[in-house]
C-alpha cells in the first residue's frame, strides 16, 4: 500500500501542549493552571437565547457569511469599542472560532514561498496554518526585556522581499503582553512603508487591565491592510460555542467567504443567535469577568514576587509568564517535576515557541481559592529547588 499521508502535514509536529496533556490526564488529583479558556460559564441570558433559538426551530444553515443581524452587531461593536467602521455586508465574516479565520485568512493571502512574520511566544496555530497554506513562517523572537512586546526594529530586521503578512497576536497568549498606542504607531509605520499586511489576532481584546485595547487597524493607513480577528470565546466565556469573526477589506473578506463557503458552509446557527445577545446585552458581564481576572492577576503577580520568581507585569489576557531561569532547568523539566512532585500542571513556555525557554505559562482562569492552593504548592517546590542548588 502507498503511504496515504501528505508529507507537508506529517512534517508538522504536534503541539507541545499535547504531550503534557497526556501526562496530566493520568493524574486526576492534579491541580491544573494549564487551561487556555475562561472558568466562567457563559452568562445565562446568552445561553438562554441559544436555547430559545432551538425551541423556535432555528436549526438551519445561516447565510454563508453569517446572520445579518450578527454581522450588524459586530459592526456596531467595532464602532462603539474601537471606532472602526466596517460594512456588515461586505467586510465582516462569521467563522468557526477565531481559529478558522486564521486558517482561511492565510490560505486566501499566501502564494507559495511568501513569508509570514510570526512573533513568538504565541498561540500554537499560526505557524502550521502558514505552512499548510504554502507560505513560509519566519519567527521573531520576542524578548522579556521588552515585556514581550514587538518593537518596530525587530520587525524591520525580519522583513525581506518576500514578507507579506505580519501576525500580531496581542493581547498575547501565553505572555499576557499587550501593545499600546505608541508601539502600534511605530509598527504601523513600518507596515505601510514596507507594504505589509497584518493579521491581528485580537481574541483577548476585552481582557486588558491598563488602557482599553487599541487595534492596529485604528492606526493611519492600516485598516485596509489588516485582517482583524476576534471572537466570543474569551470575552463572553463561550469557547465551546465555536464562534469568531474576521473584519477586513471587502476584497480579502470576499475570498475568505469563498473558502469558508466550500469548507464550512456556515458557523453554528445556535451559537450565532446566542452571540447576537452577547453583543447586545453582554457588556456588563464582560466588565464583571474582567474585574475578577484582574483581581487574580494582581494576586498571582504578588505571590510570584514574594516567592522571588522574576515576572514582568502582564496587562492582558489571563496568563502570567514567570521566569524560572535561576534553576538552570529547561521549562519542560521544571514543569514535569512540578507536576510529579507537587501535582500542579503548568505549561512550559517552549510550547509556544523556542524562545519561551526558561518561562512558564500560568493561567489565572481559576478561582482565587484554587490559585491559592496551587501557589502554596509551587512555593514549596521552589524552596526545595533552592535548597538543592
Amino acid at each position, binding site marked *: 500500500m502507498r503511504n496515504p499521508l501528505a508529507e507537508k502535514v506529517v512534517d508538522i509536529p504536534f*503541539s507541545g*501542549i499535547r504531550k*503534557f*496533556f497526556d501526562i*496530566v*490526564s493520568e493524574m486526576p488529583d*492534579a491541580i*491544573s493552571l*494549564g*487551561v*487556555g*479558556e475562561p*472558568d466562567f460559564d457563559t452568562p445565562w441570558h446568552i445561553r438562554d437565547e441559544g436555547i430559545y433559538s432551538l425551541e423556535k426551530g432555528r436549526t438551519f444553515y445561516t447565510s454563508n457569511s453569517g446572520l445579518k443581524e450578527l454581522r450588524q452587531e459586530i459592526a456596531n461593536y467595532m464602532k462603539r469599542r474601537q471606532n472602526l467602521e466596517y460594512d456588515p455586508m461586505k467586510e465582516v465574516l462569521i467563522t468557526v472560532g477565531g481559529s478558522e479565520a486564521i486558517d482561511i485568512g492565510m490560505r486566501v493571502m499566501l502564494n507559495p514561498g511568501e513569508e509570514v512574520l510570526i512573533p513568538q511566544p504565541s*498561540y*500554537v*496555530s499560526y505557524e502550521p496554518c502558514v505552512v499548510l497554506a504554502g507560505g513560509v513562517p519566519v519567527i521573531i523572537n520576542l524578548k522579556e526585556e521588552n515585556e514581550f512586546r514587538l518593537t518596530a526594529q525587530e520587525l524591520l530586521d525580519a522583513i525581506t522581499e518576500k514578507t507579506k503578512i505580519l501576525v500580531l497576536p496581542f493581547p498575547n*497568549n501565553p505572555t499576557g503582553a499587550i501593545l499600546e498606542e505608541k508601539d502600534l504607531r511605530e509598527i504601523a509605520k513600518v507596515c505601510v512603508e514596507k507594504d505589509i499586511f497584518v493579521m491581528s489576532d485580537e481574541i483577548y481584546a476585552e481582557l486588558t487591565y491598563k488602557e482599553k485595547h487599541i487595534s492596529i487597524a485604528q492606526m493611519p493607513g492600516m485598516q485596509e491592510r489588516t485582517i482583524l480577528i476576534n471572537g466570543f470565546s474569551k470575552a463572553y466565556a463561550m469557547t465551546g460555542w465555536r464562534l469568531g469573526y474576521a473584519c477586513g477589506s471587502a476584497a480579502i473578506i470576499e475570498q475568505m467567504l469563498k473558502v469558508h463557503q466550500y469548507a464550512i458552509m456556515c458557523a453554528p446557527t445556535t451559537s450565532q443567535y446566542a452571540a447576537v445577545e452577547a453583543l447586545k446585552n453582554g457588556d456588563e458581564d464582560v466588565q464583571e469577568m474582567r*474585574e475578577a481576572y484582574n*483581581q*487574580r492577576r*494582581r*494576586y498571582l503577580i*504578588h505571590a510570584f514576587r514574594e516567592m522571588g520568581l522574576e515576572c514582568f507585569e502582564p496587562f492582558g489576557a489571563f496568563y502570567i509568564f514567570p521566569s524560572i531561569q535561576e534553576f538552570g532547568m529547561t521549562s519542560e523539566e521544571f514543569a514535569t517535576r512540578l507536576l510529579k512532585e507537587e501535582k500542579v*500542571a503548568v*505549561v512550559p513556555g517552549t*510550547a509556544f515557541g523556542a524562545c519561551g525557554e526558561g518561562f512558564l505559562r500560568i493561567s489565572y482562569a481559576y*478561582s*482565587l481559592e484554587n490559585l491559592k492552593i496551587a501557589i502554596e504548592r509551587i512555593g514549596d517546590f521552589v524552596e526545595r529547588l533552592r535548597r538543592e542548588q
Partner: protein
Amino acid sequence: MREQLLKIIERNSRIDLKELAVILGVEEADIIEELQKCEQEGVICGYHTMIDWDKVGVEKVSALIEVRVTPQRGQGFDKIAERIYKYPEVHAVYLISGGYDLLVSLEGKTLREVSSFVSDKLSTLDTVISTATHFILKKYKDHGTILEKKYEDTREKVTP
C-alpha cells in the same frame, strides 16, 4: 475602589485584609480606612453568616407573608412597618408595589409558631386588612448563593 471592595466582601466578609489589598491593588491601610468609613456611613450594615440550617438538623420554618394594610394619615406605611419589624422573629420587611403592601419574611421553630404569630400578632393589628402566608418548602438559592450545588470544573486540564 469602594464599589469593588463592597462587591467582594458582600460575598465573603471574612476575606483577609492583606489579600483584599493585593487583589484590589491598594494599600492595606486604605482598605481599613474605607471599611471604617462604610461602617460609619451605614453603607455596611452588618457582617452576617449564611447558614443552611437544614444541614444542622435544627428545625426551622420560614414563611413569606403578604400583608395588606391601611396607610395612616401623615405616616404612610412607616408606622405600621415599624410595628411589624420590631418582632424579633421577623427577618425582613419590605414595602411592595402591586397587589399588596408589605412583604414580611418570618422565621419560626414550628409551623404552629409561625401561624400563631400571624393570627395572634399580625392580623390583630388595627391597620392590617388581610394577610396571606406562604411557607417556604425549599431554598434553592439565597443571597446570590446556590445551595447544595458544588462547582465542578469540567474543562480539559491543559489547553492551548
